[in-house]
């Protein structure tokens, strides 16, 4: 059991190193980010305590996944498996418990702890077996697979737009565009297997062009119900609506290009910083997109055998 946790530590450190960070520094940054985000959530909404508990549960449910617990059971036996799972869930809930206790939410902290222990004793099938329909089936794969993983976001975003119109809160409407934007950005956060780039009978330029056009079309398709609703109810703010749409598209392009500029590795720290910096100063995107495009072209040349 001790060896198991040592191995988990080694694997976690490896993942942090892959991002290009020292493991201690990585943990420290994660901690600072967690505290800052929690403070922000508590500052913004009265439902923060529920959000904290839900996020903690979502991590714990992943650890309780059927195949994972089956592996633990077959390797360590029933008793040790339960001990490992209880310990894992306890470790996961420590930061969330600390925040609740810090906010004097003792009752919620006790509930979270007890639920964490209970969840540890069960296993769940986290993957749904039925096929979720997607409008992107004709042109796989980023939006078709991404849509299925995040399908619940879209009714939420459209519901927020309806609320925004009902309570006459234009900013909430813009927030729902941002919600869809961030969700679609996540579809391009991980690189695919090299085979899926190699397989394209394209030049580097035509490959990137196709990827960008496809991403833009699909992004517009997902945001169009919000755009039309906002344009109908806030016609005088059309310039602002289109500005946010344009920014969303440009950021989507930069994420697609950042992925292929680092390919086959994951988007690394330098690209991450560039995009984060651009978020703080959006006009920079006009420089960032051509920069990442050139970098992607150079990076993909070899795989596309571009001499032809």
């Amino acid at each position, binding site marked *: 059991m001790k060896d198991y946790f040592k191995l988990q530590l080694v694997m976690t450190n490896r993942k942090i190193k892959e991002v290009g960070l020292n493991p201690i520094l990585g943990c420290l940054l994660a901690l600072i980010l967690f505290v800052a985000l929690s403070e922000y959530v508590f500052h913004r909404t009265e439902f923060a305590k529920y959000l904290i508990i839900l996020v903690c549960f979502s991590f714990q449910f992943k650890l309780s996944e059927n195949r994972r617990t089956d592996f633990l059971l077959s390797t360590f036996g029933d008793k040790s498996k339960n001990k490992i799972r209880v310990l894992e869930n306890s470790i996961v809930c420590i930061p969330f418990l600390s925040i609740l206790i810090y906010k004097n939410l003792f009752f919620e902290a006790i509930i979270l702890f007890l639920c964490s222990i209970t969840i540890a004793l069960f296993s769940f099938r986290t993957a749904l077996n039925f096929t979720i329909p997607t409008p992107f089936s004709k042109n796989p794969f980023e939006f078709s*697979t991404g849509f299925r993983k995040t399908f619940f976001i879209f009714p939420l975003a459209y519901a927020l737009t309806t609320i925004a119109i009902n309570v006459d809160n234009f900013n909430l409407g813009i927030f729902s565009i941002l919600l869809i934007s961030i969700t679609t950005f996540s579809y391009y956060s991980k690189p695919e297997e090299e085979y899926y780039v*190699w397989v394209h009978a394209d030049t580097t330029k035509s490959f990137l062009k196709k990827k960008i056009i496809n991403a833009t079309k699909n992004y517009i398709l997902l945001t169009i119900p919000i755009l039309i609703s906002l344009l109908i109810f806030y016609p005088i703010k059309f310039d602002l609506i289109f500005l946010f749409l344009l920014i969303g598209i440009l950021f989507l392009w930069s994420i697609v290009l950042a992925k292929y500029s680092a390919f086959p590795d994951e988007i690394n720290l330098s690209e991450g910083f560039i995009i984060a910096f651009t978020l703080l100063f959006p006009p920079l995107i006009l420089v960032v997109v051509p920069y990442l495009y050139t970098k992607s072209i150079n990076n993909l040349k070899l795989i596309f055998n571009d001499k032809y």
Partner: protein
Amino acid sequence: MINIKGLSKSYNNNEVLKEINMKFSRGCVSGIVGENGAGKTTLFKCIAGLESYTGEVLSDIQPLKNHLGLLLTDPFFFSKITGKEYIRLLCNARNKRNINIDQKNIFDLPLNQYASTYSTGMKKKLAITAILLQENEYFILDEPFNGVDIQSNIVLTEIILKLKDLDKIIIISSHIFSTLSDTCDEIHLLKKGEQVKSVQKIDFKTLEQEMKEITIGNRVEKLKLK
């Protein structure tokens, strides 16, 4: 034609392919055999352009990669992609659109289910279907028979022979010698990255016997089974 001239591949100081020279002709099925780690998959990846190498890989249609159907030993599938979408993805990549996928589902796969829920054999059949629908000129099939049921193996053998009739170039690796002797016109033997032997159909029996003797040796006796 695919012509490999003096192909070598090293990882740091470890040379995994040494001066490989092979010629694959149209309408000819070629087998590559060798123990695990002999360099078969690396050779395939070099031909495909998925690995860098020294030497030359020439082909009658350029670029080779755009006309090559590559079946990897263990094909990767995205989570939440259906069988049909996988085929569509690979066909779109080769600009082959408007294909009636359901009609061409010769292995009767549940194409509307997620590919990740398929068994090993079904995944392989899906990958094979996809590269066949890409209408390639060259095929590299790395262990196409592995994990596939007997019925589908029979179908697969017939498909390979049909591709041969259509004047395609087919390169196969397999650990099951009978599958190669049924389909191949020539077999190349790799050992620790070296091209040890190239044998024509007439000498397959001798090659099989030689491989048996070398592979088995006195290993079974060493066990002293009781």
